[in-house]
């Protein structure tokens, strides 16, 4: 802008307002610059979190694997880091985790899928509006409450008709975990099924199909990627679950397929060691990170797989 200054004379009102607007714009631009810097900094926190998790787990695990061979860790079948002689085979912990998650998965898949089919294909709108929030409540209950429920209600109930020799057993914890993740399977599967377009159903009905046939032969196969993904994500949740298994499944690392026994999951082990206040630097303390790393990688792989399945296989109608 050409200078309208006349040196030695007071500024005109017009010039003052032009300058005022120019300054205001500078302030506003400066404000935006500062704000954007702050916003980017905030965004970095999420990036740093992931980096923090990965660095912490890997750094300490690296220290751990200086003393314990990776081979022994991955293939050993005895987990006894707190005893002499120490053994560091992580398979019993992984086995316990998978057994508990497996039972939970069976419960969640049957109940969740059944509920999803009912809600999307059979239920009238009124019923649906009542039932959905109730299922959400199931998902929102804290896990410690589920653990209490497993120990105080489910275990005695199971013991009354099954010969369960121990009070801490996987079956009880698995069933309760299944109840907890069932809403997840049900909500996500229902989303997938609702997304199947009406014409497909109409066509099937036009051919004389019953609701069951439409559900099972048309809708579920069309929604299958979403259903499978919901199941994988729910399983991943069950694998990462801590409180229920710590309270109800036991503290005995035990490689077994028998759900009536006590086991210890990876998460329960991590809790056990960290409550014992083992100090930094010891080999036992580093087991927290090694086991944590396995847990993190497992859940990460499952989450990525679940999302990938949805992206790759979902039909866009």
């Amino acid at each position, binding site marked *: 802008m050409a200078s309208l200054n006349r040196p030695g004379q007071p500024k005109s009102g017009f010039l003052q307002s032009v300058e005022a607007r120019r300054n205001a714009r500078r302030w*506003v*631009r400066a404000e935006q610059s500062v704000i*954007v810097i702050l*916003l980017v900094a*905030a*965004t970095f*926190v*999420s*990036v740093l*979190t992931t980096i*923090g*998790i990965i660095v*912490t*787990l890997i750094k300490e695990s690296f220290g751990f694997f200086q003393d314990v061979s990776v081979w022994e860790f991955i293939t050993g079948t005895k987990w006894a880091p707190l005893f002499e002689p120490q053994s560091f085979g992580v398979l019993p912990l992984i086995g316990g985790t998978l057994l508990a998650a497996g039972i939970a998965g069976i419960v969640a898949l049957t*109940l969740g899928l*059944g*509920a999803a*089919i*009912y809600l*999307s294909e*059979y239920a009238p709108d009124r019923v649906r509006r009542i039932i959905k929030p*109730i*299922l*959400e*409540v199931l*998902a*929102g209950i804290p*896990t*410690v*409450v*589920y653990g*209490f429920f497993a*120990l105080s*209600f489910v275990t005695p109930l199971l013991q009354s008709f099954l010969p369960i020799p121990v009070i801490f057993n996987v079956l009880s914890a698995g069933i309760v975990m299944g109840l907890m993740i069932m*809403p997840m399977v049900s*909500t996500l599967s229902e*989303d*997938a099924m*609702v*997304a199947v377009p*009406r014409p497909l*159903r*109409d066509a099937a009905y036009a051919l*004389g199909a*019953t*609701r*069951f046939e439409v559900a099972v032969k048309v809708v579920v196969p069309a929604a299958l990627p979403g259903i499978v993904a919901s199941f994988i*994500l*729910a399983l991943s949740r069950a694998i*990462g679950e*801590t409180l229920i298994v710590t*309270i109800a499944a036991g503290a005995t690392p035990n490689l077994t397929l028998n759900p009536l026994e006590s086991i210890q999951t990876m998460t329960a082990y*991590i809790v056990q060691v*960290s409550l014992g*206040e083992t100090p*930094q630097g010891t080999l036992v303390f580093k087991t927290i990170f090694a086991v944590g790393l396995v*847990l*993190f990688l497992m859940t*990460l792989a499952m989450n990525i797989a679940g*999302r990938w399945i949805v992206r790759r296989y979902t039909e866009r109608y």
Partner: protein
Amino acid sequence: MEHHQAPLGSARVTSPIAASVTRPRYSGPTPPSGSAATRSPWRRWRDRFFFLLFFASVAIGILGLAALVIDVLTDGLGALDFSFINSYPSRHPGESGIRAALFGTIWITLGTAAFAIPIGVATAIYLEEFAPDHWATRLVQLNIANLAGVPSIIYGILGLALFVQALSLDRSVLAGSLTMTLLILPIVIIVSQEAIKAVPNEFRDAAFALGANRWQVVKMVVLPQAIPGIMSGIILALSRAVGEAAPMLMISSLVFLTFIPTSPGDRFTVLPVQIFNWVSLPQPGFQAVASAGIIVLLAVLLSMNSVAIWIRNRYQKRY
């Protein structure tokens, strides 16, 4: 992908499946059940049978919930009285109370809110309004979705290694709040993004047409519209923080306290950890005490969720 306990209503928000489609649910005519002459009795019967089976799935889920609630109420209502809320834990079940845990929870929740709200909302604003369509942005978005799915105990490990040990914050309220912040940050970001996305573009366009720059548009137009949704989402995220025991177990450890925190550097305990402690005690009296604690925890969660739902309903804009 959010798949820890879903705060009421938000499972749908973050589902990758729902995100990709927005079709209305099937609302066509319900087909006649069995009137066509070509339908064999077997198929009709099978339809009815499976209807019952699928309904039973829902029923079992609801029954399970009912069993849980009844179990907790019958065990705990007797022990729930004013002195329970006002007392500290004790070796005698009759004298035990949740005062320390309740105030620990309040401190932790406030601390978490203090950190998570600014960082989370700022991140959401950046990602929605300012970030260029660049592979780095997509990576950050993906990263946040992944973080939402990391088991809570991993955050506990991170908190223990980073805040308690590396930064020498000890087992303090501050360390606990920071750990919880990291845990709920992905949820806060995701719900804030949803709320910001819901503001129609016309509003933004109008502001730009009047000469506002990007930040002014956000500050004066988008944010005010999005705030109810953001607030509601934040309260739901905080209610998730209230119920989480695993990371707090690792940070605070199982400790017997005779005081409530009076500064961020104090030791603390929270409701779920205290309940976990009582659940482990085999003396029969403590079952009732644990149940009473659970009732208080559920009441706190219920009140938080109610407030969030109220905000959402009251301020829901229809564009």
